[in-house]
């Protein structure tokens, strides 16, 4: 295992606690990553005595509408409670207003003026949280706007706002396939030293087999594992690799993949 790189797993709810606890106790994971906000019930606490990295897919960081104060407060409280080394945030809009999310996140319009807004928001959010922000892109299905790509948009915003980056290999691979680009398109648009975390998950195609989607019920394919291994060897500040696997997916797959990942990275 490369020194300084931790392996973790995504926490989606209390139903996963048993498998995550077991993975931690057997040395397969070092942390869990939880998406905030979460509810207030007994199944809504990811701690279990395991380090928690805080993430949020619900804030409209790349939107001129502003952000939802309630979400920011909950994310900040969780990050403070768990002393999260950074907070993952999606570089996206969420809905037509600051407080709204119609469904899946909305990829940003790739326009320099919107990049300026995202830079201002990311800087302010970083100050508000009092800890580093790590920006992540969602999967792309189309290019909207005149900047060359979402990777250029992310690279520009992260650089000017001085943020970390979460590189989600499943989102990245899906985007490249959906936009008919090479499998390593756009990596050179990111400052390698800003990438602190990698997300790994499976992919699936839709019924027409033309478009690829994030699929947390599946395992990453060999190409994505090889990419993670390659990046782990050359990203100077990489600190974490998070496996995203939903709780209703087979437990045997979960443990087998974590074991494989540890071996591949050793």
């Amino acid at each position: 295992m490369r020194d300084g790189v931790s392996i973790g797993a995504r926490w989606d709810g209390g139903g996963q606690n048993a498998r995550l606890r077991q993975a931690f106790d057997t040395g397969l994971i070092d942390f869990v990553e939880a998406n905030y906000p979460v509810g207030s019930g007994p199944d809504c606490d990811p701690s279990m005595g395991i380090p928690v990295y805080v993430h949020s897919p619900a804030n409209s960081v790349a939107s001129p509408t502003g952000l939802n104060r309630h979400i920011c407060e909950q994310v900040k409280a969780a990050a403070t409670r768990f002393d999260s080394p950074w907070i993952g945030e999606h570089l996206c809009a969420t809905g037509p207003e600051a407080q709204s999310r119609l469904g899946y996140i909305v990829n940003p319009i790739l326009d320099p003026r919107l990049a300026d807004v995202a830079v201002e928001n990311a800087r302010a959010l970083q100050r508000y949280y009092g800890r580093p922000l790590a920006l992540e892109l969602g999967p792309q299905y189309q290019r909207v706007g005149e900047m060359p790509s979402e990777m250029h948009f992310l690279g520009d915003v992260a650089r000017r706002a001085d943020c970390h980056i979460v590189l989600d290999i499943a989102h990245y691979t899906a985007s490249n396939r959906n936009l008919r680009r090479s499998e390593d398109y756009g990596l050179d648009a990111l400052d390698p030293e800003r990438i602190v975390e990698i997300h790994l998950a499976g992919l699936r195609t839709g019924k027409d087999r033309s478009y690829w989607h994030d699929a947390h019920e599946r395992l990453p394919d060999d190409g994505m594992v090889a990419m993670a291994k390659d990046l782990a060897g050359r990203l100077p500040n990489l600190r974490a690799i998070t496996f995203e696997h939903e709780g209703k997916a087979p437990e045997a797959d979960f443990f087998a993949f974590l074991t494989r990942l540890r071996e591949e990275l050793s």
Partner: protein
Amino acid sequence: MTPEEILFRPTSERPELGELIAVQTLYIKLLYCEVTNAAYRASPTAVLDDCGLPASTATMLPRVESENHRAEMHGRRLLAARELLLEYPTLFAAVVGPDCDAPRVGRQPFFSRFLSSSDFFDPKRRLPHAFGIGEGYENISAFFFWARANLELDPAAKQALYEDFGRWLVKTAKSSAVPELQRHRRGAFFFRHDGRAMVVTGAGRVIEYAGVGDVASVLRTAGLTDLEDLQP
């Protein structure tokens, strides 16, 4: 400026962002609304003009005729259909068919009408979210308010709408610390087409209420929510 002043200021205090907000609003509408897509395909400049946007902003919007845009719309439609199907199984079985799935729901004309409605796009046409983050983070209540006002349903389907929503409301209320939701914990009621009162209990069961007289007052006094009166 403090971070809070930057992050949480009302958009009304940022007139310089007005055009960007208008473009993004139209962009989001184009990801869901077939009516707006059809209008934009027919005349982009007319739609932009309606939104108070110059023709030059067309470069910041999707190419609506492209396969990629249609694919993204399709995926979003499926996700929205899945969300609703999970909580309205009885209604969709009655309206779409007993073996309906998300793709079939997604193909229904009424579903397109919902995704094109102001109820879908307006966060205020929803109940507060159970996590204490305000309105606008689920489509279940938005669909109920829209369907109650806009969908012509036969008596059995209408009962299914109220039963499914009542169960979701009580379940959500019981799992939430949000006061506006907690008031629905004790249950909800509605009247069937034949005038009989139906109660969704705190346990999520639907039973007929056999009382006489001013039944609605009795049930309201008992702390139950009248689904006919419930507003966002």
